[in-house]
């Protein structure tokens, strides 16, 4: 299948791109296109105008350390996120999440900015960035702003980006004494995932000082398990607390259902993944 026609814009600057997107309500930015183009080919989504942004200088792939912060540019591909040394070292949950996206070809082309801008609860990186308390760097016609990831996902396919705003990158403070894990269950690499979980806990002498948990395909948006995070704080990580955390993280969820997973089954998977993530971190600590 082939996409419906659209008008193409190839702006020269980020500012120009923002202005275009602001003034053309039905325009959509195109980054790596790995989410967008398949939807356009199936004709379930057909923007009237496309604004190419992948070539803009401000967006070019790159990961760098600025003091205690890692900055990831928007066009950094999943494959780059997966293999980047800084990310593997300091933000392994993000690296693991990127590695688990679809297949090699899609990881070679899909970008972190496009992935997050999509506002889809089934994108791996959203859970990882929630767990890492990332900041989304957005550029609009009135300038730059930082949006805390907690405030970014508003509803299904709906984000906090204002008209004309484009994600230029992400900032993540390097967590201290952090243990991180990403786990996912999917029937097939390019299929809609069944469930995934991203965990980032700060440990001191086996006691959890802080915890952030991102859940995927758990709700209309990527979400955190805030109650469970609260519970886990200042607790020793052990079988009992792990079970309780998993239960609290999932008990009130109403995940979407489809032919591959009922809401109940998805809930169960999230619970199991939650336990497995924490258990695997517990194992790591023991070693």
């Amino acid at each position, binding site marked *: *299948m*082939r*996409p*419906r*026609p*659209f*008008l*193409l*814009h*190839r702006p020269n600057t980020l500012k120009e791109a923002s202005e275009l997107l602001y003034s053309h309500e039905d325009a959509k930015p*195109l980054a790596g*296109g*790995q989410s967008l*183009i*398949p939807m*356009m*080919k*199936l004709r379930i989504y057909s923007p009237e*105008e*496309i604004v*190419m942004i*992948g070539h803009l200088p401000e967006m070019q792939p790159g990961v760098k350390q600025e003091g205690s912060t890692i900055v990831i540019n928007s066009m950094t591909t999943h*494959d780059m996120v997966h293999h980047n040394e800084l990310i593997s070292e300091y933000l392994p949950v993000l690296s693991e999440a990127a590695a688990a996206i*679809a*297949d*090699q*070809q*899609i990881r*070679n*082309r899909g970008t972190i900015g496009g992935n997050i801008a999509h506002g889809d609860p089934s994108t791996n990186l959203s859970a990882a960035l929630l767990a890492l308390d990332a900041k989304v760097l957005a550029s609009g016609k009135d300038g730059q702003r930082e949006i805390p990831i907690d405030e970014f996902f508003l509803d299904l396919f709906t984000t906090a980006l204002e008209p004309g705003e484009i994600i230029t990158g992400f900032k993540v403070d390097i967590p201290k004494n952090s243990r991180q894990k990403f786990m996912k269950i999917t029937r097939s*690499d*390019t299929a809609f995932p069944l469930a995934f979980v991203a965990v980032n806990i700060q440990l001191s002498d086996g006691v959890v000082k802080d915890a952030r948990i991102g859940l995927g395909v758990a709700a209309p948006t990527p979400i955190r398990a805030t109650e469970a995070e609260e519970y886990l704080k200042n607790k020793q990580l052990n079988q009992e607390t792990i079970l309780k955390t998993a239960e609290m993280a999932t008990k009130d969820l109403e995940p979407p259902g489809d032919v591959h997973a009922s809401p109940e089954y998805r809930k169960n998977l999230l619970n199991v993944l939650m336990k497995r993530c924490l258990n695997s971190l517990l194992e790591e600590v023991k070693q």
Partner: protein
Amino acid sequence: MMEGLVKVSIDINGKKYTDDVEPRLLLVDFIRDIARLKGTHIGCDTTSCGACTILIDGMSVKSCTMFAVEADGRKIQTVESLATDDKLHPLQEAFWEHHALQCGYCTPGMLMSSTFLLSRNSDPTEEEIREGIAGNICRCTGYINIIKAVKDAAGKINAGKETE
């Protein structure tokens, strides 16, 4: 600026192809219908099957999930680039040796994914090969012979390197 037809110029296998195209023209259609290189195939609508896999600036991508305009000014390799002077690429040799194809429809995509894999990992394990071709569907062979062929080709390429 807003554009109707767009001039696109793409280097495919060392040859430059230029045409005015609709912005929505998929790269795979550019390769097949404008460059008239028919080795790159279409097998699905959802970026799942990998029959259209090519290398763009050395990276494997699915050419059905890119617009031709996105490839403007870039270098592409398709399956037609693998054999040189009628000499098969080691991967092609190994696919032949192991009967790693039946209908051959997935084969160009499989070869391009494998080429990328070996460019990055010269000695992949069986598991790494499975991961490397996870984005390519084959309905005929059951994959086992493909995995064997990729492993074998890696061995031969490495042996070749050592003797150089």
